[in-house]
């Protein structure tokens, strides 16, 4: 038990977030008499989270290197509108449109980063300029037509569609999405195998590993959770494309930040820019890359949002940057730099969206909703700061 105890103590910040999410979900489930945890609502909740989660992922790295990007909200709105125009007025194919919009997102991120990296303009100001510019650009694009309706079904599926059930059957487990079950099962198997391989490799190098009892307990615990999520998703329409894209983005970013040279460099720049520079890391280049990634995530977010609404509106993306910043902070990123994970920000986004979703279910007044969201953000950050102090 003492091993479990030290494990908990060491990772109190990380586990705290998961526990908070579980508590929030339990409270809403009880208050809504089970509606909150229904398959339909959970799928809906994750679909709502999608466009915000990808923004939060991009924002996380920006905050890790001690900057901020206020431009991403309206940038995502603007890029979503460009996608709508490309599809409806230029008659571009869905593939070309998506690649083009993502390219624009990267360019926009680089433009924000340029004065920051080369002249030392504060990112707050540089991206505030972007906030104004893209807001204007969004109004300009939608000025002549107002809301642009996108009738393209393939495109809209990104925001509303589901992975088709190739194993559909009325005989076996009726009412469940079989493909989703299969994917979930595969994910669990991959998880278990990779953990076992990882443990074996560590033992080969004689590194410290969990005791075998605790290791098995961990495998079972995570597998059960994965299985439970799969079961809930399969109970409605299964995996939506939005969830697939969101998970894909998080997995890729998680890999890049945890396993690659680029990831190490980003965290080193955040932890101590001067030391990073003197270690031969090009801080300017890292800054450009991180803002470009933020722009790219704004593009993905814009595409998801436009597809979800099946239209581009002049208000799209409004306050998106603030939601992303809140999600990142709830997820444990530190403004002092060098601390914060992509996975954390995903959980932060889900926590944040659970609050909105749950309070909507309960019919909470919108004014009260904002106040509660603010308090939760504050509590999360206070928890973060105090646990970090104790650890140091």
């Amino acid at each position, binding site marked *: 038990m003492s091993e479990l105890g030290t494990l908990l103590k060491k990772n109190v910040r990380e586990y705290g977030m998961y526990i908070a999410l579980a508590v929030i979900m339990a409270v809403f489930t009880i208050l809504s008499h089970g509606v909150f945890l229904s398959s339909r609502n959970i799928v809906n909740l994750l679909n709502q989270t999608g466009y915000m989660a990808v923004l939060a992922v991009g924002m996380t790295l920006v905050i890790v290197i001690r900057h901020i990007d206020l431009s991403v909200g309206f940038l995502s709105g603007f890029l979503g509108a460009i996608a709508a125009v490309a599809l409806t007025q230029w008659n571009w194919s869905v593939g070309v449109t998506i690649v083009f919009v993502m390219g624009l997102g990267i360019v926009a991120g680089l433009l924000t980063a340029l004065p920051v990296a080369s002249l030392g303009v504060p990112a707050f100001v540089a991206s505030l300029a972007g906030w104004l510019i893209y807001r204007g650009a969004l109004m300009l694009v939608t000025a002549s037509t107002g809301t642009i309706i996108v009738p393209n079904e393939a495109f809209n599926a990104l925001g509303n569609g589901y992975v088709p059930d190739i194993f559909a059957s009325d005989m076996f487990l009726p009412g469940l999405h079989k493909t989703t079950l299969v994917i979930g099962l595969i994910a669990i198997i991959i998880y278990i195998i990779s953990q076992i391989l990882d443990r074996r490799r560590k033992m080969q190098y004689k590194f410290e590993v969990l005791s075998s009892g605790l290791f098995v307990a961990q495998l079972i615990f995570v597998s059960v959770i994965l299985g439970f999520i799969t079961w809930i998703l399969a109970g409605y329409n299964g995996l939506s494309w939005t969830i697939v894209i969101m998970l894909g983005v998080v997995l890729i970013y998680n890999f890049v930040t945890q396993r690659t040279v680029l990831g190490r460099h980003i965290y080193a720049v955040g932890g101590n820019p001067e*030391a990073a520079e*003197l*270690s031969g890391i090009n801080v300017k280049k890292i800054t450009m890359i991180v803002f470009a990634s933020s722009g790219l995530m704004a593009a993905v977010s814009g595409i998801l949002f436009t597809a979800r609404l099946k239209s581009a509106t002049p208000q799209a993306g409004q306050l998106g940057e603030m939601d992303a910043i809140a999600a990142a902070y709830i997820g444990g990123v530190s403004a002092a730099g060098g601390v914060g994970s992509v996975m954390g920000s995903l959980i932060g986004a889900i926590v944040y969206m659970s609050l909105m979703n749950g309070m909507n279910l309960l019919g909470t007044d919108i004014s009260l909703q904002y106040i509660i969201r603010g308090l939760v953000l504050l509590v999360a950050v206070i928890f973060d700061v105090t646990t970090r102090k104790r650890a140091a």
Partner: protein
Amino acid sequence: MSDNILEMRHITKTFPGVRALNDVNFEVRRGEIHCLVGENGAGKSTLMKVLSGVYPHSEFEGEIILNGKKVEFKNIHDSEDAGIGIIYQELALVPDMTVYENIMLGHEITRGMTIDVQEMIKRSTELLKRVRLSINPTSKVKDLGIGKRQLVEIAKALSRNVQLLILDEPTAALNEDDCQNLLEILRELKTQGVTSIMISHKLKEVLSIADTITVLRDGQTICTLDRQKDVVNEQVLIKHMVGRSIENIYPPKKSKPFKDVILEVKNWNAIDLKTGRKVLNNVNFKVYKGEVVGLSGLVGSGRTELARSLFGNPDGYQVSGDIIFKGKKQRFGHPRDAIRAGLAYATEDRKGNGLVLIKSIQENISLANLQKVSRNGVINEELDKQTAMNFVDSLSIKTPGIHQLVMNLSGGNQQKVSVAKWLFVEPDVLIFDEPTRGIDVGAKYEIYTIINDLVSKGMSIVMISSELPEILGMSDRIYVVANGTITGELDGKSATQEVIMQLATQY
């Protein structure tokens, strides 16, 4: 009958692993100019920080008696209220505010709810007159030269009815005229009853102004000399400042003749574009393969600037001259280029810009050479860990594991992590800036052993150090830096502390 304004008795102040002050006694008579001299690290600044309340009463042993009364300062405000004013090397003025705003900062004169600008300007003008500075009090501090800023700083102290003025190397950054002017003003303040304590490295100026001189060495009072009673000259002071024999704290090393020049720097100049100051002036030196070259000099002499300007010039100085490295003329535009070519620089400030404190030992060690533990940009986690564990073993870094955050290590172990990081890039030349600053004697010995081991394997080490015994004990050859240029080259075996001190205080 002596009338002492200040007596500090049995002051002992320790930092983790270091005893900075050891039972120091220090007395200052009313109305005198008292100079405090000693090598870098002798404890002068620490003593003044104890006096001015930077280190609160609870953090040191001993007592302070001011005007015959025992005082216990909790912070700087307490000491200010008691009539002590301290002027630091780095000036504490707000550049974008005006002169009068700076002088009255924190003690603004008000009329009712509002600030009385007219009265403040009037008061400031009087104070500026006392330091003989004829400038408009409404001009901005950033438009003043460094010499004038120093005087504004003194005026600010005077505005608080200071009785005891402490100046920490006030003339270090000043030119000759400003120096003379400052000394003149200190003499004048003396006639007005202000007592001054001045820390200085410039012995000539100390001799020209001091009534009494106290020498500190290794955190202890060595002697207090009265100009009227004792014979005091530069030689006497230098002898007291360095007068310790080099004990057996340096591991023995095999000395062999050096043949191949690996690094040669010719006519090297650097100008700091932000201030327009020439930080390096026509520097020439060379390093042989397998050699330890000592770069000696006082703080601010340009040693670190020299190292950084060679190592990819991260400060963006305007540089000119030649670097001949491994037989080729080279210029490094970024630290990365220098590292790739085989030149490494371990910084003097390992916490500030050397290590990423919030990251683990493992992440810090491989940071400068991640290519070596990765393929196609993906890090091989096992190889990375193995690397860190090997260094932890070979350098005996004391830690519960390689995942330990660097900020939780002791100074000596942090320094070893820094060493490991630079060994991992396998440089030909390692510039090692203050390798033993702030670490205890045992860890020092280990660092020295590592250095000797490295040079025996063919690496060259340029060791920058403020500690003369260390320079003498470790170096094969020594260059002395003063005022941005090299003032002498000495053989490591025949050099003495006195000679180095003389070259280092040459202006």
